[in-house]
Every structure is written in structure tokens, then in C-alpha cells.
């Protein structure tokens, strides 16, 4: 009987410790503030549809529906930017103020138009916000520059346009006699050994 009593006491102590641990775990639980969406196709879908780009001409036609976000540094923004644009420097996209502003635009069903000195500067920010779950985010396909009198010049940008027709260029410029060099054109066959993907940190 005595042994049974002792056993019960031990179980009680371990149960209390277990309960305490659960309580500490629950109290110290912190929900992650910024979480990427799980959907792998989230950035791929707009890329496939090619509807993540907005042209310079749309700035006037869709004026009231747009929320312009200048991603350049504040000193560049101060030199001049598009009318009604707000400034959020790319590294500050997760700041409280920036998030509040972006969420406000989303609530008001505005199309968030990101722009920098050229679309390449807005590329990363667009992918970042899209994967955080912001909808209606687009990139302005234009380049911004200040002229000698510090006046802002906005011009159209040719996105990913090849400088040349490379195929015809290569056909035209054939090697001179005797200088032909054989370049391997066979596709590399590579034996991949799949590495175990490291567990990425995340969650709490």
C-alpha cells in the first residue's frame, strides 16, 4: 500500500511538471508576424499570365485606382517622384508604417504599383509582396531619371528586349577560314545526387 502511495505521488509530481511545461509553452508562444504563403504557384501564376506589368500610359487612365509606391531611397525620392507616390525604400518593406500603408491600399481595393529607377529595382519587391499574400501588386514598366536641371524624366522601358536578333547575328558572323573552333554544343548530361534539403527555419 505504501509503495502504491509513493508511486502515485511520483506520478502526480511528473504530471504537474508536464502541465507546467505546457503552460510555459503556451504563454511563450509567439505567432510569426510575417509569413510567406505556402502556395508555390503564387508568384508563377502572374508570371505565366504576364499581368504583373503596368505601362506608363496606364498611369493616367487608371489614375484613381492606383497607389504608387516609390521603392528608391529617400534622398532619390526627395529629388522628385511621380505625383501622389509614397516612398517605401525596399529594405523597409516590413516596417510597421509601410505595412500599414500597404494594407490600407489593399483594403481600399487599390492597385499597388511599385516602381524604382527601372523595373529591375521593383522586381524583388513585387515577388516579395506577392508571396506575402498581397494581391493586386504590379510593376511599373518605366525608367525614372533626373536631367541636368533636376527635372524627373519618366520614359518607357523595354523589358527583356534583346539588343540583337542573336540567331541571325551568329549566322552572319561566321568564323574566318581556318579559325573555326569547335565548341561543345551537346547538352550537359549531369548525374545529380539529390542532397537532403536542409530544414529551413521558420514558424515559431
Amino acid at each position, binding site marked *: *500500500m505504501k509503495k*502504491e*502511495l509513493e508511486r*502515485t505521488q511520483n*506520478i*502526480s509530481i511528473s*504530471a504537474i511538471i*508536464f*502541465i507546467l511545461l*505546457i503552460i510555459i509553452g*503556451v504563454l511563450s*508562444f509567439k*505567432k*510569426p508576424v*510575417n*509569413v*510567406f*504563403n*505556402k502556395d508555390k*504557384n503564387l*508568384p*508563377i501564376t502572374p*508570371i505565366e499570365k504576364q499581368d504583373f506589368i503596368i505601362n506608363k500610359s496606364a498611369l493616367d487612365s487608371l489614375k484613381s485606382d492606383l497607389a504608387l509606391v516609390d521603392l528608391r531611397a529617400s534622398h532619390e525620392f526627395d529629388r522628385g517622384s511621380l505625383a501622389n507616390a509614397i516612398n517605401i525604400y*525596399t*529594405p523597409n518593406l*516590413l516596417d510597421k508604417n509601410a505595412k500599414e500603408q500597404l494594407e490600407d491600399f489593399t483594403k481600399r481595393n487599390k492597385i499597388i504599383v511599385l516602381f524604382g529607377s527601372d*523595373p*529591375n529595382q521593383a*522586381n*524583388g519587391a513585387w*515577388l*516579395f509582396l506577392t*508571396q506575402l499574400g498581397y494581391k493586386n501588386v504590379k510593376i511599373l514598366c518605366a525608367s525614372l531619371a533626373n536631367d541636368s536641371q533636376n527635372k524627373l524624366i519618366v520614359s518607357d522601358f523595354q*523589358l*527583356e*528586349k*534583346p539588343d*540583337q536578333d*542573336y540567331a541571325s547575328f*551568329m549566322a552572319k*558572323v*561566321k*568564323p*574566318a577560314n581556318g*579559325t573555326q*573552333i569547335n*565548341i561543345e554544343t*551537346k*547538352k*550537359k548530361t*549531369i548525374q*545529380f*545526387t*539529390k*542532397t537532403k*534539403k*536542409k530544414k*529551413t527555419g*521558420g*514558424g515559431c
Partner: protein
Amino acid sequence: MSKTYKYKKIIIRRRYRILAAILIILSGGLVLLPKYQKNVGIKPETFLLNLMSPERYISTDFLANSLISKDPSILLIDVRSAKEYSDFSLPNATNIPLSAILKPDNETYLDQDGYKVIFYSNDNFYADQAWLIAKRFGYNNIFVLKGGLNAWFNTILNPEMPKTSDSELEFQKYNTRKAAAMFFGIGAVNTLNSNAATPNIAPKKIILTKTKKKTTGGGC
């Protein structure tokens, strides 16, 4: 069975019941905890830092040098469409259109440690997107060809002749690039920039200073 034994047994049972009840209540509480979305891949904060880093960019000169020296650790991935790839691509490049970058078959190219994977497109916009998507899902050893094929064309296949006022280093670089262009199949490279003025480089003046012939020591 004595009376005290019965009494103690009741106490033990009661304790067990209380403990069981507490545990059941706690487990019920866990069900009520707010559901939260787990992050897949790297954290947004880390992604934002990576996004600003220019370390992902590889220059055309570096790539040309790697291709000429047949660096086996380079794996070029053309993220343009299949048509553009078949028309013209860099030597030994593999075509994975951007929209197919995360398809399970293509992920094997990213999920490895042995190769430096270099994405390229006409400029570096789509290659950057491929890099950012791959980085987001935690893949490492990935790079972007700065300026893409346009930069490849303007610096390697058809390099601009330096100005006469440029440094000798620029001329050396130009000559290296011209040699690289020949390696990559450009035979008539000199005719491409025919409009460019030939630099008037002053011929090197060599002043010979006669050294005094040493008298040979002889004998012992």
C-alpha cells in the same frame, strides 16, 4: 481488507481522476489555440536581406573565362522560352522556362550542392525572378548573369573598342574579350566594330641602355 486501506484507495483513485481531468482540459485547450500558417522556405526577413544583396550577380567576363577554361562546376540555365533557347543560347546551357522553374523534374537542378547554377535571360529581369523564387524556397549555390545575353553580346561577342584616352588595362580587357569572341564562334570580329576609330597608340619607345660587359674572371 481494513477500513483505512479502502479509504486510501479511494484517495488514490480521486487523485488519478483529477490528474486525468486536468490533462484532458489542457489537450482541449491546445485544440482551441489559434491556427497559424507555417513558413515554407526562408523567412521573409532573410529574403528581404537577400533581395538587396548584389552577390548573386556574375559578370560576363567571369562567365566567359569559366566557359573557356571548361569549368566543370558551372551549370547554365536559360530561363527564356524554348523557342528563344533553340534560336540562340550560351554553350552547354539547359533550358528551363521561368514558369517551369519549380516543377519537380527541374528542382533536381536546384536541389544540389555540386554546381554553381547560373540563371540568364535577355536582360536580368527574368533571371532575377528565377533566382528570387529559388532562393525563397531555400536553394543555395545559385547566381544570375548580370545584364544577361544583352551584356554578353555587348561585352564578349561584340565588345566596344576603348577610347584612345582609356587606360592600357581597358585595351588589354578588349583584346581578351576579342579572343573570347573568337572562341565563341565570332570569326569576323574585327569587322563588327568597323566604325570605331582605330586607336592611335604611340609605339612603345624602347631605350636600350648598353650594359657594361662584365670582365670574366679567369684563372684561379
